[in-house]
């Protein structure tokens, strides 16, 4: 999803500008020195012997930024973290990737990193759920598990000699079906305790990948996974299953029901609105936007219009100022 510029009318420009200024004033009080642009000076205590890290430079005894971003301090290390950049993995991150290659005993996944991530056959649960050693037959059947262009959810395991390794050792990881994948800048997704969300009232699953890939799809129960995997297990001996034998009529019956699809589209548009405005993407904000559009009885497509985006910005400014007063 590429960045979309909103076609704003004059009134909407003024309203959006006011809301953004209000948001900036709220955040400025807390982190007045957090964001920097190139050549901004960074306040440091020289007596402590600071370490100048990435994105900083020494100029006449003063530490200045060489990047636009946010200042981070880790003990004595001071560095600037650029916002508009590719995803930088950390161990334990939940990521969503797309299979680009099936190699020997592994899949290569594109996760918006500067190189492909590796998911080993031994780093994931087998479809039948049995904990056993992988055999040569399993290697031959790797395309029955994930094939090219499949969307996979996994966890960052760490860096090895041959690149970044992922693992999918839990039932919640694995292939993602019946939904759509959205791409947002990675800095909009904060690391949280929970990245898997099941919106029960809507019947949809929401996975916020730390790499900016967000999956919105139909809810899948763990039990259904077991049953479905058993069905596919019976075909595991077939190297190239014939997936095109499903007729058009049978395919239509398998479509997501319209009510669930409406909620999937509404949630996806909520994420798109947040990405357009550059706001943090968290579950409560997404839910708030969905409820706002439902209360206004707004058409799903109109959520992407200028008027609703400006309204979301204004509501977010109100919400943060009320949270500010509550403290």
């Amino acid at each position, binding site marked *: *999803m*590429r*960045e*979309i*510029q909103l*076609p704003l009318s004059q009134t909407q420009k003024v309203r959006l500008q006011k809301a953004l200024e209000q948001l900036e004033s709220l955040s400025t009080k807390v982190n007045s020195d957090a964001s920097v642009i190139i050549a901004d000076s960074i306040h440091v205590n020289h007596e402590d012997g600071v370490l100048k890290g990435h994105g900083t430079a020494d100029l006449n005894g003063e530490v200045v930024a060489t990047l636009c971003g946010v200042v981070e301090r880790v003990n004595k290390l001071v560095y600037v973290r650029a916002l508009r950049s590719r995803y930088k993995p950390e161990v334990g991150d939940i990521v969503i990737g*797309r299979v680009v290659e099936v190699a020997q005993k592994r899949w290569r996944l*594109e996760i918006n990193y500067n190189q492909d991530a590796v998911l080993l056959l031994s780093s994931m649960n087998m479809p039948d759920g049995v904990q056993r050693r992988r055999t040569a037959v399993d290697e031959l059947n790797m395309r029955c598990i994930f*094939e*090219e*262009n*499949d*969307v996979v959810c996994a966890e960052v395991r760490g860096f090895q000699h041959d690149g970044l390794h992922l693992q999918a050792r839990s039932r919640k990881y694995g*292939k*993602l*079906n*019946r*939904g*759509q*994948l959205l791409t947002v800048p990675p800095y909009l997704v904060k690391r949280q305790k929970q990245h898997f969300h099941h919106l029960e009232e809507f019947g949809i699953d929401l996975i916020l990948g730390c790499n900016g890939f967000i999956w919105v*799809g139909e809810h899948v129960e763990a039990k259904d996974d077991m049953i479905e995997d058993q069905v596919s297990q019976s075909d595991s001996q077939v190297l190239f299953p014939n*997936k095109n034998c499903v007729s*058009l009529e049978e*395919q*239509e019956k*398998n*479509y*997501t029901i*319209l009510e669930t*699809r*409406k909620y999937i*589209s*509404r949630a*996806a*548009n909520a994420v*798109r609105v947040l990405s357009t405005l550059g706001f943090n993407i968290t579950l409560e904000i997404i839910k708030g936007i969905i409820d706002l559009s439902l209360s206004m009885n707004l*058409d*799903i*497509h109109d*959520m*992407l*219009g*200028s008027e609703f985006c400006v309204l979301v910005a204004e509501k977010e400014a109100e919400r943060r100022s009320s949270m500010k007063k509550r403290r």
Partner: protein
Amino acid sequence: MVGLSLGETHFIQGGIAQDLRCDGRKRLTYRPISVETGVIPQTNGSARVRMGATDVIASVKAELGKPSLLQPDKGKVSIYVDCSSTAEPAFEGRGGDELAAELSNALQRCLLGGKSGAGAGIDLSSLIVVEGKICWDLYIDGLVVSSDGNLLDALGAAIKAALSNTGIPRVQVAAGTSNDEHPEVDVSDEEFLQFDTSRVPVIVTLTKVGRHYIVDATSEEESQMSSAVSISVNRQGHICGITKRGGVGLDPSIILDMISVAKHVSEQLINKLDSEIASAEAEEES
């Protein structure tokens, strides 16, 4: 662009079958369209059109030239399209040439009519200065800045907006020149003739996915298409050109149905586009 998984393609096809696409649109609904005119000051006319994440720029340059021997009473119009490397990694180097040539041919077929010049959306006779001797040559250039599907419709809309923004200098022909000599002309720097765009058509592309067809397909939806028919319709409801792409053949009854649907859709699109162009021109003057 990257490929799609089976689950995603199934979801997209289901959305089209159930008349609720991934972003909540119906089959015949367009993404938000925004128009900006006068974006390139060096040209006689220019415009920028955004349809969702698709972003294109069109410009018009006018030059005095000599009419073709075959049609001495008509001016000349050329259309070229270039795909910027920033739009898609695949457009790097010569990667976008094939798509650019395809778009150029489709635009010429939709806007300029046949070889006889009949049915052209642009009135070529208005470009004549002296019949058989001097005419205006229009060079229309399109640039794809960002590509998210439906490039042909966006380029057609951008060209229509650019022609609305075009000012052709007024030309005074020196009197008393004999009929055999090359006439002397004085091109004014102050006075400009506004181009008449009331007959310039809009292009509506109907993309067939499964059993249904949709307008304004995104990149993901275009990857699922079996074929696509582009129909240019003007304000009077006349068909100015039809092109088809995609490998699957279409039944004639389906094409006739597509034409009637395109006529219906083009009414709203023309009204929307004309109001956007008018507001863009007003904003440019202020």
